[in-house]
């Protein structure tokens, strides 16, 4: 499964657990519009760190937190191997 698909799957699972009704997940959707609160994002980032072995938001100090789903996914895709 690609990084993108794993991220989407993790988002859907957390939405299910947190009883958040997700809109359709497009690259342009802002993270705010997902309905996730900071706790849900914190859980997402932690689970992705376990799944993908990387946390791009802790790795480098100058990484700003992304605005959209597309930015969020690219932050993971662009991490140097």
């Amino acid at each position: 499964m690609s990084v993108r698909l794993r991220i989407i799957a993790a988002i859907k699972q957390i939405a299910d657990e947190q009883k958040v009704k997700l809109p359709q997940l497009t690259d342009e959707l802002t993270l705010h519009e997902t309905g996730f609160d900071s706790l849900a994002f914190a859980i997402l980032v932690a689970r992705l760190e376990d799944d993908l072995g990387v946390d791009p938001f802790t790795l480098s100090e100058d990484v700003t937190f992304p605005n959209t789903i597309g930015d969020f996914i690219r932050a993971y895709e662009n991490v140097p191997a």
Partner: protein
Amino acid sequence: MSPREVFALRDHLGTALTERTISDPRHAVTLAQLTTGSCLGGRAGELDGRSVLLATSGQLLAGFALIEIDGVARRMLLCPPDLKTEHLASIIADAEIDAIVTDEPERFSECAVNLSVPVGLPALSARMAQTTRATEWLMLTSGTSGVPKIVGHTLEGLCGAIIGDRPVPGDALPVWATFYDIRRYGGLQIFLRAIVGGGSMVLSDPGEALADHVARLNKCGVTHISGTPSHWRKLLMSGSAEQFAPRYVRLSGEIADQAVLDGLKQAFPRASIGHAYASTEAGVGFAVNDGLEGFPATLLGEGRGAVDMKVVDGSLRIRSRRAAHAYVGRAAAALTDGDGYVDTGDMVELRGERYYFVGRRNGVINVGGLKVHPEEIEAVINGHIEVRMSRAKSRRSPITGSIVVAEVVLTADADPARAEAVRNEILADCRARLAAHKVPAMIRFVPALDVTPAGKLARSDA
């Protein structure tokens, strides 16, 4: 003060001295041997008025020595087994130690203390120790970091919760045991109950496997036994409990949740099972024997008995003659507030008519500004029928600072194929009973969880 007014341990050994023993895996010594012999080679008199560091390799020699030294030395500091060498110098200075009683003299060769008295098994001696004073008992706190604090007690205070329930003549004598080390407050309480209360004492040994320990408890006919909830969970997990039938089971030192109380009731259906609140500083607070977690709110208040209790800013405060009288040392903080209350740092919550322990004040995890005690999460997880023990802890998060994750040990008979289902059931329990930030973001199944030498669940992040 004339010596006759002084309460020393040797004066309270009671009767049946030839039948009562103090034992470990290797030796059993009768109290009669202790009253006719010396474990200090007859040299107790040299410790008269001194501040003694009692530092033995095992509990047995410590038990003998403290009976012989009490009433002779000015002070006696009980060194727990895990005392770090780097803390030794400051503890010696703070407690004004001027004599060491040890079976490991090489360990203290660098210390600036010129009197060292060796300790061994008791041997007949013509020079028996005489009670000349009330010795101050010093114990160390079991905090996980930094230099332990030195806490000063009197024997009278330490025995304050030991009611004079000496065995009825003709009844079998009680045989006490504890998973604790007797050089810590919880273990010392049991040792004193055995000695002052007319029984025998079966000591634990860190090198002994749990199954062997339980076999020995059985062989020695142990009737009364105490430990932390972590100790008991380990016993329940091991399957060794099946061959053991104590009459009296006590838990202290950590929060006793309903799951461990129910587990013990099931394992020991004929035993009296209760939990007690005690700490090195506050002494024995109270015992709860109704089989339920928490304690009745009616225990709070003043003038109801030996112990006054109140809750301030969520933490339990205790004022009692069983409490320590001071922290000892050059820069020792005040032990009590202006009204004589010890702040235990144990946080409680009132639900209905009962208070429930929720955790340690300094163990709080901060999830994006919201606070959670790992213990309140563990209490929910441990309620699952297939869970034996668990540890909730903080995990760093770039978003909220921390999130909560949990490690879970399943019961011995749990079906590994059900792990995923159990995980979902635990999470459902947590969601039903806890606020969202308290629900573990991740649950990991582990074969075992570390327990500290003091018998408490190891919390690296607390």
